[in-house]
């Protein structure tokens, strides 16, 4: 390759304005797009959650009609999972993986662009039917819960839009994951062996594998729904020899690994942050790697614990119970390693550390309720109650979302070159912490008392707990505007960040200037 030619191909074209974002092949631009898209979806999904909470403030129907309520629960779940959490992690991977492994960019930059630019179209397809009714309240959005169980989802009039939206989302995830795997396996700086990789990179490598393994299965599930509804197949119809329970098996074969897809990168992020602010090396690096790999493996063989009450043979119940409870072992290894990393560290609690510690603390609560739910006979009591809602919000909000925010705060100075406002960061953390716990902790009690999830109305006895939840949800929701303000303020200016940013920072990304240059590592660094 001649000097002039490589010069031509690398440095001459920098479109500005909208074209820069539409056509970009740069991992930082694409990471930024992912993160902003995720934030917009987070706001949209959050607004839907507030509609749900406002309606549930009192018994009886006050604000919306039941179908609209069902649309809100369905779309809130789908948008948060596929629109907010997953794209945020891919955005963080885009920004950070090349920086952390010493690569010039992602391995397949054009496909990287495509992975992102499918998402807005898929989201449009998902939400569009909401606006196809005669008026807004009678919209025809999906209203069958985010798990879209057959045969209920088969009665949905605009099912095809939903199915194709899921196809597109899957397409995007698979391409994004292929790119991340190729980048991690092929683009590491000389000397960075697999067991020297930062934990965030490790967790994403395993997450990407999970995504490639299960997103096609989800595509298969929605394809069967599509053909059952429009082309006369009988996959989920007992009259034709099929079985509605088959849908649940196929769905949860995707769905359970999906749960870990949404948590493993957060584990990686806090495994980066805690050592920095404890000013110690991560305790038990190798065991952390093996724990993540074990969790990923186990995620493939536990899916039917979501279906304990569906009518499985007892042998199935027992197997899925024991396999599920086994996950507690590698998860506990991680939690103990984080705690041990902090043990006798010289700790400071800047915003990213607050979020990281909050994640460890609250995620563990979600883990414990997960153990309770994993015990098959006990699950018959908890199944489809608010106890389940409390459980998965403790792992998804205070696990995945807190992890994402921790990562954004941790790396924001590296991205923008400016420090964020520490006071605002702490205010945001504490308000979110209070709001989040006010929202979801009482749900454990409403659930144990027997309130089923996904209902728009409830008996008077549940009113107090629901009111506390609603108040908490509004505090939680509106606190997020502080984050928006903080981020915009940080992009616009502020105290200049040093290259290391944090006193105890470790890893390649901190050897680059802040803000990181447009092309990350022109020359690959040497790792000793």
């Amino acid at each position: 390759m001649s000097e002039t030619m490589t010069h031509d191909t690398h440095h001459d074209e920098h479109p500005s304005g909208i074209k820069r974002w539409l056509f970009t092949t740069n991992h930082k631009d694409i990471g930024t797009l992912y993160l902003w898209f995720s934030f917009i979806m987070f706001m949209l999904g959050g607004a839907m959650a507030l509609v749900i909470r406002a309606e549930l403030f009192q018994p009886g129907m006050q604000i919306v009609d039941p179908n609209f309520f069902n649309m809100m629960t369905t779309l809130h779940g789908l948008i948060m999972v596929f629109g907010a959490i997953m794209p945020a992690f891919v955005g963080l991977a885009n920004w950070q993986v090349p920086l952390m492994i010493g690569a010039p960019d992602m391995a397949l930059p054009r496909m990287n662009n495509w992975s992102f630019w499918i998402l807005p179209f898929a989201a449009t397809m998902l939400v569009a039917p909401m606006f196809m009714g005669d008026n807004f309240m009678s919209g025809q959005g999906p209203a069958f819960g985010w798990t879209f169980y057959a045969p209920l989802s088969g009665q949905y009039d605009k099912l095809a839009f939903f199915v194709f939206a899921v196809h597109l989302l899957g397409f995007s995830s698979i391409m994004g994951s292929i790119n991340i795997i190729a980048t991690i396996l092929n683009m590491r700086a000389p000397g960075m062996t697999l067991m020297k990789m930062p934990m965030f990179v490790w967790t994403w490598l395993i997450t990407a594998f999970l995504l490639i393994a299960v997103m096609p299965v989800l595509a298969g599930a929605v394809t069967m729904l599509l053909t059952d509804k429009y082309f006369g197949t009988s996959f989920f119809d007992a009259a034709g020899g099929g079985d509605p329970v088959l849908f649940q098996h196929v769905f949860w074969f995707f769905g359970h690994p999906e749960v870990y897809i949404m948590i493993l990168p957060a584990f990686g992020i806090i495994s980066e942050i805690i050592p920095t602010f404890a000013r110690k090396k991560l305790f038990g690096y190798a065991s952390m790697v093996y724990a993540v790999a074990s969790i990923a493996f186990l995620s493939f063989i536990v899916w039917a614990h979501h279906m304990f009450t569906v009518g499985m043979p007892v042998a199935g119940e027992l197997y899925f119970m024991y396999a599920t409870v086994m996950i507690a072992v590698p998860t506990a290894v991680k939690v103990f390693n984080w705690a041990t990393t902090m043990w006798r560290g010289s700790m400071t609690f800047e915003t990213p550390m607050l979020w990281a510690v909050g994640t460890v603390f609250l995620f563990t609560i979600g883990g414990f309720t997960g153990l309770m739910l994993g015990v098959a006979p006990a699950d018959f009591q908890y199944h489809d109650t608010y106890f389940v809602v409390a459980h998965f919000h403790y792992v998804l909000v205070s696990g995945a979302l807190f992890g994402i925010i921790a990562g954004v705060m941790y790396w924001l100075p590296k991205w923008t070159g400016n420090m964020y406002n520490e006071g605002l960061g702490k205010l945001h953390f504490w308000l979110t912490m209070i709001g989040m716990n006010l929202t979801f902790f009482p749900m454990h009690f409403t659930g144990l008392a027997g309130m089923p999830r996904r209902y728009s109305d409830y008996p008077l006895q549940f009113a107090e707990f629901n009111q506390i939840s609603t108040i908490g949800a509004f505090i939680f929701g509106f606190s997020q505007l502080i984050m928006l303000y903080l981020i915009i303020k940080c992009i616009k200016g502020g105290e200049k960040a040093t290259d290391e940013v944090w006193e105890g920072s470790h890893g390649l990304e901190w050897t680059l200037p802040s803000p990181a240059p447009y092309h990350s590592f022109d020359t690959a660094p040497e790792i000793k």
Partner: protein
Amino acid sequence: MSSTHGGYYVPQPSHWPITGSIGLFLATGGFAMALPDKAGDPIGSLGVMYAGFAVLAVMLFGWFGTVIKESQAGMYNDQVDRSFRMGMTWFIFSEVMFFAAFFGALYYIRIFADPWLGGAGNNLSTHEWLYPEYTSHWPTNGPGNVGGDFQTMGPWGIPAINTLILLCSGVTVTWAHWGLKKENRGQLILGLFATVALGFIFVGFQAYEYIHAYSDLNLKLNSGAYGSTFYMLTGFHGLHVTIGAIMLLVVLLRSMKGHFSEENHFAFEAAAWYWHFVDVVWLGLFIFVYWLV
């Protein structure tokens, strides 16, 4: 080289990805709008879908064209080549998992759902309350006799011939690869031509078989669980054979234009991997869909 990104080719901004997104959006959205809703009248026609496919075709042509041009200009070093190889490998893995969903559905129905419908095990209620007359059997179209009585396709006619065709095509594509490595262009082109021809003959037989099933055996897509799994599995397989044959056809045309060298022929290998993948899927189909009924 130091002024480059470690020699790794990072392409310039490209409009092909967003073109592809628009194509996908039109194709899927157009299809969705053309499907009937409750009232029975779709809100759109298939025109939008065709437009979407046209955009996708243009995108594929343009994007692959760009990649081929860059490759021919020698912009890809070994590291870029490895990225492509990993990309193709993991893409094929994702395809394997897509088929796994449908194979899984087949096994679940045969091993669990159908016996339970017939009253086996402790899942009696559906049998007791809804279908007490039903006895479990395979192939089945369920207690509702959905789609009416049908016959199945015997394995030792066309399916066996098709198995032979695909196995032979696996041999011819390997023979072509040897030709490429020995720099024997004639062997390369002849081997590829034979592979593509065998691929399209396979698809032709498959189409003939479908017509036969529909007109003579009353075996249709809506023939209950058997019809569903039979057509979805063989149909998606046939689609993948078609895609693989088109990939090999492009490789054939490029070989005739003098592309590829003995060391540098990732496109050939990618297409060949894909071809072996559809081959293996077919063996699974032959055993579990045609043979073990």
